[in-house]
């Protein structure tokens, strides 16, 4: 997936002189996850460059660049470090079109790796999307595979509104079935691992049915899409897995169509439970599909604790938790 992201940036730097890529260690070095490898050498030092270690500044200057007319793609090295930039995102980037009644707008795409499962401890594992999905004026995208990652990132860069593009780092190098004790399979073995070299877009705001099924609906995004699919396959569960891809704006139609069909719904995310995006999904599903629901909606999420380093597989909502939740869902 990291190559797909690199390719999306490369394509956009090539197509549009207004695109600039910036962030801590993204220039000469190519980023701590190598997402920007080779881009500075190819596109030049004023198009792809390192920044001071100041997330507020990274987003703040990107906002100014956006107002000028560039399409900056700043990277926040880990999603855990996005908080110092929060004010420039929440009070500025996403408000400027509104407060100026359209005189100014900020076409920036903030990329950041999120999620755990790499023994990153509590400051390299967080999934803070729930903080941002509450922020109106902001689009939030979380891809689950290389093909989507490239198409969605290109669409995000071309979007004229601020987009937060979170990359699940656990699946940078291959899908993850939730069994931390098994060897990693590379993307090359996965159909969505095939990524065209050229430009293509996947529209923001459209979910994908990642697996069809009838027993119940699983709403997931990022890493958890693969965990959910693997769970179904390993347990012979006939669930439908929806890969949300974009959290805001949400593809409500795809969700409701599935829940209307299955009558049961499980929501899976790695972020902590209380107030996570799962709460919004649950509220939305019960508002729209109340009469179709045959059992309480299940939320399978990270516990309401920080992401503990040594105990991370106790925190991670893995196969055991999905199995037990599925039991409750089907027995209700």
């Amino acid at each position, binding site marked *: 997936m990291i190559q797909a992201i690199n390719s999306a940036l490369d394509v956009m730097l090539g197509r549009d002189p207004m695109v600039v890529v910036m962030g801590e260690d993204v220039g000469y070095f190519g980023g701590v996850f190598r997402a920007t490898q080779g881009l500075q050498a190819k596109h030049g030092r004023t198009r792809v460059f390192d920044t001071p270690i100041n997330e507020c500044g990274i987003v703040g200057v990107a906002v*100014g660049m956006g107002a000028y007319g560039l399409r900056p793609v700043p990277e926040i090295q880990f999603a855990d470090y996005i908080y110092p930039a929060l004010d420039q995102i929440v009070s*500025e980037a996403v408000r400027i079109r509104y407060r100026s009644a359209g005189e100014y707008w900020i076409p920036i795409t903030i990329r950041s790796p999120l999620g755990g499962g790499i023994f990153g401890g509590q400051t390299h594992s967080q999934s803070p999307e729930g903080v941002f999905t509450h922020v109106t004026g902001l689009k939030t995208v979380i891809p689950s595979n290389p093909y989507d990652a490239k198409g969605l990132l290109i669409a995000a860069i071309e979007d004229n509104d601020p987009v937060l593009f979170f990359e699940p780092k656990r699946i940078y190098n291959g899908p993850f079935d939730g069994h931390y004790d098994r060897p990693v399979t590379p993307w090359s073995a996965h159909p969505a691992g095939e990524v065209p070299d050229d430009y293509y877009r996947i529209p923001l705001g459209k979910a994908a049915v990642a697996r069809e099924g009838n027993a119940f609906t699983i709403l997931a995004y990022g890493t958890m899409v693969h965990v959910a699919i693997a769970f179904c396959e390993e347990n012979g569960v006939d669930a439908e897995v929806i890969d949300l891809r974009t959290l805001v704006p949400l593809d409500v139609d795809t969700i409701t169509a599935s829940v209307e069909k299955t009558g049961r719904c499980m929501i899976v995310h790695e972020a902590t439970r209380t107030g996570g995006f799962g709460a919004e999904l649950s509220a939305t599903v019960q508002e729209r599909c109340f009469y179709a629901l045959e059992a309480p909606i299940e939320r399978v999420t990270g516990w309401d604790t920080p992401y503990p380093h040594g105990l991370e597989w106790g925190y991670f909502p893995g196969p055991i938790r999905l199995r037990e939740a599925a039991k409750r869902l089907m027995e209700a």
Partner: protein
Amino acid sequence: MTSQDGDARRNLPPLALHVPEPKFRPGDAVDFADFEMPVAGAVDRPPTDSASRDMAGHVYAMVRVLDDEGRAIGPWNPGLDPDRLRRMLREMLTVRAFDERLHRAQRQGKTSFYVSSTGEEATAIGAAHALDPDDMCFPSYRQQGLLIARGWPLADMMCQVFSNSGDRMKGRQMPVMYSARAASFFTISGNLATQYPQAVGWAMASAIRGDTRIAAAWCGEGSTAEGDFHSALIFASVYRVPVVLTITNNQWAISSFSGFAGGESTTFAARALGYGIAGLRVDGNDILAVYAATAWASERARAGHGPTLIEQFTYRAEGHSTSDDPSRYRPSEERNLWPLGDPIKRLAQHLTTLGEWDDERHAALEAEVVAEVREAAREAEAQGVLGDGFRHHPMETMFEDVFEEMPKHLQEQRDQMLAEYKASGL
């Protein structure tokens, strides 16, 4: 209650916290006798490619052009012609009349809030003249002078203040939070100092694109404490960004004097030294000094020598805003005893010294701008004032511009609102 406190070591003297206090509080006699008046014309004007460290003196001294008699002297004298000076004077008077009118309008219940710039008019007007008209301005809420100097229609600004049907911002922003793209004036934020890194970013973009326009930003001395200020200066320094960063040090941040922003220990211009960028300290009530410093900084930026931090030393003559009552925290007479005077009087005095002005023309000009402001207010108020029923933009416009294209959930919410209004007979 558990305490995490340990035992102090008894053989050392106890530490104590220093909490700043301003010189004068209500009830104190105001006395500026120990104010050291910087000498006009005394500070040298370094070449615009000077290294930051070589002009360290400029962050502690104060650039002044106008002396006590109103003469323009010294190397910073920009030598502007009388017509230009009269234009500046007119614009400062317009700002003052505008502020007075809208302050009154707020008191009359026509809007929720207003911010005057009384006493600080020179900082914006002087800078506007030194910048090119298409240089991009990132102001705080106290730079209405920029818009006025760039000839922006007063009635348009007033409509914004009234959140009325003529408000181009569609009633979305608090009063004074203007936006004027055609005047290269950025949309003002209520969050302090956020415009600083944005200005730096805009100027970085201009440099990346090989453009010729530079950016300029303003914030108050209190706001320099914010992290955004630091962010801006770091980026400006690292990439040698063509940006002019101004601190309007009006000595007060609502009720807190500048000591709470670090002003007891050094000047605000001295911040520049920490970033290795050029710093200038200027008498902000001397419009020629303001002009000259801004012109110096803009020349420096255009020539590729990087950013300048300018401290404009001035005094906030009025309350922070209409929500404020300054007599609660500072003596009312401070305003009148303030040694650096009034920028309007000082420019008028200068023009008089030059034989280009007199009291009569001054009175006539005052009357003229007051009439102009009155006329603009009429025009604006005809389009509604805040709270007068339905003289604002239609409610459903609230859902526009959140995104470029309204997503489905906002369309649904808009439709729900309209349906609910209808059901309620509205």
